Structure formats: structure tokens, C-alpha cells
């Protein structure tokens, strides 16, 4: 098993190299330079001043040299400094990560808590009124543009009813609140962003859950269990769900990079300073070091998620345990 793991991990290195090379090429092919924000189309900034800035950032070097330098720094786990504010890239990421992680973990928990029971219940009697109702509901949720739903909720709960804050992470007087009130304040602000983020994902996941459960409940061993006279909940949750959950493992493994990649739309609408906005703003400003760092981290997590899903799969399902085959 560990030999297999080592081999899988080793095989990732060349893939990663390719990913970085291609992303580096693509972002440099896009028109525009990091120095545009400071200088382009501002008559107070002369051509010479702009050229000097490009020199200071090393942007006058040929692309292979720039890539080589970047790779050299990466070897020392140094992602460089942002072109926008000259802060270390890792510091910028570390600052944004907690918010995004909190929202994504909370919403993932909410999604699992809702999608699994919904899927199971719909699968118990496929075609029943409950199944059809959830199907309709789920498809409405799936096809609803999240930014539109978010704006509607903000306008209704925030402006009309005044139950929830419109945007932001904290109240303006947060710092002067007592500790308990601070916690409540944060939760109050997170309600809508987490709810909206989860709402859209529940739709997809509950469908997976349903179809996988429908398959499982048709199996012979379920009939056997019924024939033995086991109580229905035990059949469903002990025998059925354990097998029905298997496809979810793959999906969860693949969603590992999503945990740190925030949604640009949700973060922009709710004024939340998270990873999604960091990436979007970096792309807009052609902030190459930040873009490259986020692409690299995203690629590593995607690949790790794949390996992890395979391993977890083998753990959960003895039939495909790789150790034997090897």
C-alpha cells in the first residue's frame, strides 16, 4: 500500500510541472502587464517611469528566464511577492484562507446534512410524491443563478425585513462588543453566505445520493435483509447507506480544492474578503506571483484529492482494495 502511495505521489511531480508551465504561458499570453494598473493611461506617469517599473519587477526579462526564476523560488517554497502591494504571496493567502475555509466547511457540513437524507428518502420510493417534489425543488435550486438568489435574499432579509445584515463579515462596532456577542455577530453575518453557497450544492449532491441509493436498494442483499425480517431503518442505514455512500467519496475527494477556492460571485456580493476574490483581483491586476501560487496550490490539492479518494475508496470497499491486486 505504501509503495503504491509513493508511486502515485511521485507520478504527480511531472504533471504538476506541466500544469505550472502551461498556466505560466497562458497568463503571460494574456494582454496587459502588472504595471498597467499603476501607469497605463495616466498622463502623470511617463513612459520612462513605466519602463523602469517593469525593470524593477523583472518583467523585461525573456519569459523562459522569468519562468526559471519562478520555478527556482518554488523549489524553496517561496512564492514571491505580489506585484500589487509587494507583500509575500503566502501572507496574502494566509490572510484570506480562514474566512473561505470557515464558510466552505460550514456549507459542506450543511450540504451533507441535507443532501444525504434527502437523497435516501427520495430513493426509498422512486417516483413517489416526495421524490417528485424534491426532484422539482432540486432542479430549481440547481438552475438558479446563485448571485441572483443572493441578491434577492439580501433585499428581502436584509432590506425589507431587516433580520440579517446585507453584507460584510462583522458589524462595524464588532471590536467593542463583548465576547459572546462577537460570536453571535459573526454567525449572524455568515448565515446568508453559507446558506446560499450550500443551497446550490445540495441540489447536485442529493441527486447523486438518490441515484446511488436507488441502485443499492435493488440489490439482492437488500432483498435478503428484508426477507430476514430486519427492521426497515436498519436495512436502509446499515446495509443500504454504507454502500450507497461510496460514490460520494470520489465527489468529496475531488472537492478538496474547492474547500480553499472560494466563490468569486458569493464573496463579491457579500463583500467577504476570501480566496475567490483574491484570485479574481489577481487576474484582473495581472498579479502573476499570486495567480501562479493559487494555480499551483489548486493543482496540488486536486491531485492529492484524487489520490486520497482512491485510497479512501479502497478502505471503504474491500472489493477494490489495491493491495491484493499488486
Amino acid at each position, binding site marked *: 500500500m505504501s509503495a503504491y502511495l509513493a508511486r502515485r505521489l511521485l507520478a504527480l511531480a511531472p504533471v504538476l510541472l506541466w500544469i505550472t508551465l502551461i498556466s505560466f504561458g497562458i497568463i503571460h499570453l494574456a494582454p*496587459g502587464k502588472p504595471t*498597467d494598473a499603476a501607469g497605463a493611461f495616466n*498622463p502623470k506617469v511617463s513612459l520612462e517611469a513605466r519602463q523602469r*517599473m517593469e525593470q524593477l519587477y523583472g518583467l523585461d526579462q525573456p519569459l523562459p528566464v522569468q519562468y526559471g526564476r519562478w520555478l527556482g523560488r518554488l523549489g524553496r517554497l517561496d512564492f514571491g511577492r505580489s506585484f500589487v502591494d509587494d507583500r509575500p504571496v503566502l501572507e496574502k493567502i494566509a490572510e484570506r484562507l480562514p474566512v473561505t475555509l470557515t464558510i466552505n466547511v460550514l456549507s459542506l457540513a450543511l450540504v451533507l446534512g441535507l443532501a444525504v437524507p434527502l437523497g435516501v428518502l427520495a430513493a426509498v420510493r422512486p417516483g413517489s410524491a416526495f421524490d417528485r417534489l424534491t426532484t422539482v425543488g432540486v432542479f430549481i435550486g440547481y438552475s438558479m443563478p446563485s448571485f441572483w438568489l443572493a441578491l434577492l435574499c439580501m433585499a428581502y432579509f436584509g432590506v425589507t425585513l431587516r433580520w440579517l445584515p446585507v453584507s460584510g463579515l462583522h458589524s462595524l462596532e464588532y471590536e467593542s462588543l463583548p465576547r459572546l456577542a462577537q460570536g453571535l455577530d459573526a454567525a449572524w453575518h455568515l448565515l446568508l453566505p453559507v446558506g446560499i453557497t450550500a443551497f446550490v450544492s445540495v441540489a447536485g449532491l442529493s441527486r447523486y445520493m438518490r441515484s446511488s441509493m436507488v441502485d443499492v436498494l435493488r440489490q439482492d442483499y437488500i432483498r435478503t435483509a428484508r426477507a430476514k425480517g430486519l427492521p426497515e431503518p436498519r436495512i436502509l442505514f446499515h446495509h443500504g447507506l454504507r454502500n450507497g455512500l461510496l460514490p460520494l467519496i470520489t465527489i468529496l475527494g475531488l472537492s478538496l480544492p474547492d474547500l480553499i477556492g472560494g466563490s468569486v460571485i458569493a464573496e463579491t456580493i457579500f*463583500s467577504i474578503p476570501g480566496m475567490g476574490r*483574491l484570485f479574481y483581483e489577481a487576474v484582473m491586476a495581472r498579479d502573476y506571483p499570486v495567480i501562479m501560487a493559487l494555480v499551483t496550490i489548486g493543482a496540488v490539492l486536486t491531485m492529492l484529492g484524487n489520490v486520497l479518494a482512491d485510497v479512501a475508496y479502497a478502505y471503504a470497499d474491500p472489493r477494490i482494495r489495491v493491495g491484493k491486486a499488486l
Partner: protein
Amino acid sequence: MAIRTRLSLLAVAAAVLLAGSASVHAEEPAQGDALVVGSIGDASRLLPILATDSASGDIVGLLFNGLLKYDAQLRIVGDLAESWKVDDGGLTLTFTLRPNLRWHDGVPLTADDVKFTYEKLIDPAVRTPFSSSYELVQSVEVLDARTIRIRYREPFAPALESWMMGLIPKHLLEREDLNTTAFLRRPVGCGPFRFVRWKTGELIELVANPDYFEHRPRINRYLYRIIPDEATMFLELLTSGIDLSGLTPLQYQRQTDTSLMRRAYRKFRYPSFGFTYLGYNLHDARFQDVRVRQGINAAINKQAIVDGVLFGLGSVATGPYSKESWAYNPSVAAGAYDRARAKALLAEAGWVDHDGDGWLDRDGQPFRFTLLTNQGNEVRRQVCELVQEQLKAVGIDVTIRIIEWATFVHEFIDKRRFEAVLLGWSLSRDPDLYDLFHSSKTKEGEYNFVGYANPDVDALLERGRRTFDQAERQRIYQEVHRRLADDQPYTFLYVADALPIVSSRFRNVSATPIGIGYNLIDWYVPLAEQRYRRMSP
């Protein structure tokens, strides 16, 4: 840009000494409360010489002062400088600082700090884009703690504006690498507000400086909330989550026209510094003929554009200056909208509808061109459509093409691959237009991209830069205005209004030619209406 944004709506270096403006009101200005400002973007570097984006400029303008500033009527007055002298026909500037100036950490602010700021501005290792304004400086000499003398290689009138750049503290930055110093995220300035904290992408908090040399700002705190989405910003206004923000013309005229909004807010309006124009590629044979450009100018109904696109919240432009500027020449006519005259001018240039298909032609070629503008600016797109419609009426076939900004600048403007563009300039308060219209500024990446070359205008622009005498400068730039209106290298379309909205609990707010923020330290909220009481001063 820092200089421009520092003076923009939200950015206020300091108040003008409007003697007794507070005493006009019966009530005593109360101390307290906070002003919450909504901004689309976050700041990046809180150091005047590195602040290039408008958010950084807004904050830096409250934390740092320069030697000079513009007053409410756009006159140059002393800020940190108590007085200044221009000698040798502009070759020498001497500034005397106010007495007892201090940085926020209590250390005295002296002429050494001025010299230090200058040295950093021209230091090739510092990543500042503003060095070009200081290239003509020959020497900067500290005469005593409060006096500094600056010599120029040749007279340079825009130099006065360049000394509005915020000063930076020598004692804190001497040993730092300015590009990466921690100071950029927790600055120590000398302005009316002090830095408290900066939560990236969320909030920047400032607190009133009790020792500010004019007087302590009446408002205790200044909170700069970053709200990247315009729809969210408007919802925040509806719930009073922010006290000050800019509006779009549509929001100004329609969406804020409710009884709730009228009670809770006051709207202001004043001309922005800048204009929107139709620029021609003057290397294109058709546009080289001045009659063609004048014909197009006469064919465009600018008032219809102002009314239709800006809901009337702007004014027709006759040249590059707004009516409030002293450089504006009131005798230049707006190039009145006159379709018959337009057709006559175009016919004179040989453009007549010979084949009767509805489009003008010359030598068998129909008059057809592509008008380029940048993506993401809804107003410009609409203006393009109106121009297209109006030129169609005189027989010119216009195709509109909208292009992403970076591509637009580098692939089309820089490489001169355009026939006509629709763009806007936002300019500083000094009327110098050397970079836009001087014939030497036509290299790739420079701003006379239309390729305008008129020796008379060149001479005027050069003289304007060398002249310090205000009356003489006024004559020069009014003449520039007239020449540009005659030559039409651009067809100047309109000057849009800036449209800020401010919570009605703030008193002493008024719109002036420079905007509303010039007297921020005199704004106050009566005790009974104060909202943020938990925040201690």
C-alpha cells in the same frame, strides 16, 4: 494620479480655512460619531509616493499632507507650507513650513522630511510611477528646519501641483526598503486622521488626530468599507450601512428618489475633472481633413447624449476644461449641433452621396469607420450607440467594437490600429495638456496617440509650462482651448458630474468646484443624531 485622487470626492487632504464657517450655524459643532464610506476597491499601499489606485489615494489623502493644496475654489494655497515664494521666473521655489508640525508619533516634521520625500521620489530603486514630475528639479536644499529651497533646471509651472504630494517621515523610513516596508500597511502620517487598522478586503479604520494643526476633526472615526459589488453597495445605502458613496446617474435620478432616501440622505452634484471624447486617428487620410472632423462635430447632438445617457447630470464640453476651471474659454462655442452645416462641411471635403444609397462616398468609397471603446463601461457603450445613430443621419456608417481594456490599450491604441475611439480622460486640476496634445508625445505608450501635431499648440503648451504668472497662464490655456476646438483632434462630448450621496446626519457638507470632501474636518453630527457611540474617540 495620487495628486488627482487625493483631491477627489472622498479624498481630502485637509480643510480650507473657511474662517468662521462653523459659526454660521447656530449650534455648536458636536464631537463624535463615525463616517462610513463605501468603496468598490481595497487600498494596496498606504504611502503617498506609491499610492496609485484610487482607494489608496483616498486613505493616503487623509493621513498625509503635502506642502500645498487646492482650496474649494481650485486656487493653490499652503497646506503644510505656511508660505512659499517663486523666484527667478520660476527657477527657484522656497517653502516655509508652519511652526510646530508633528508626525502622528509626536516627532517634529521638518524640512528634512521634504528633502527625504523628494529623494525617495527620484530614487530609481523605489517603485514609484510619479518620478516624472520631479525630473526638472536641479537641487533641493534645506535652509533651516522650516525652510526648504528647490531649484529647477528650467521653469516648470506644474511643479506647484507636484508639491501637493504627501510628505513621508524620514525618521521612520530612512532605514527601510520603501517597496516592502511594513509601514505600507500601518502608516504614520501628519494629516487630520491617524491610522488604526486595516482588515484586508474588508475595512480600513482611521481615528481623528486630536493634535491636527488646524483643529481636531469633529467626526471621531473614518471607516472605509470595501464593498466590491455595486448592487450590494446600493442595498447597504438602503439600510444605512454606509454614509457616503458615489451614485450612477440612474441611481441619482430614479432609484434614490424615494421618501425614505430623501429623508436619510443628501445628494450632491459637481462637475468631475475630465471629459469624454471621440478621438480620431489623424494618420487616417479621411480624418486628416479638418472639415471632416468639424463636420462630425456638427453632426453630433451632445445635449442629447447628456440627456439620454447621463439623465442630464453633466454638461456639454467645448474643449478639455470644465466650466469651473480658470482655463475654460467661455467664448468658444459648443460647435452647435447643426445637421445641415455638417453635411455642407463634409461635402466641401468631397463626401457626398453620389450613388444615392444613403451613405456618403468619395472616389467610390463609402464613408465607413469603426468606433472602438473599452469593455465594462456601460455609459460609453450607450454614447457610442447615440453617436452611431447621429452620424447615420448625415450618411456616415459607424460600426461599434467593444474590447477588453488591456487588449484595447496594448493592441489597438499603442499600435495605432484604430480609426476612431470613444474614451475619457480624467485629469488633474492643472490645465497642462502637454502629454495629450504635444507633437513630441506620440511614441508607443505615450498619450498623443491620435497623432495631433500643431506647431502653434506645441508652442502654447511649452509656454504654459514655463509661465508662473496666473493671468498669462490663463490667456495661454484659453487659447489652447480655442485651438483644440477649431482643430478637433478630438470631438469633445461632455463633462460628467460627480454624484456623491451623504447621510443627512452630517452637517456642514457642501458641493464646491473641488468636491465635497475639502472640509471634512468640519463635518459633524449633532449629538442627538449620532449613531456609532460605542466607538471611543
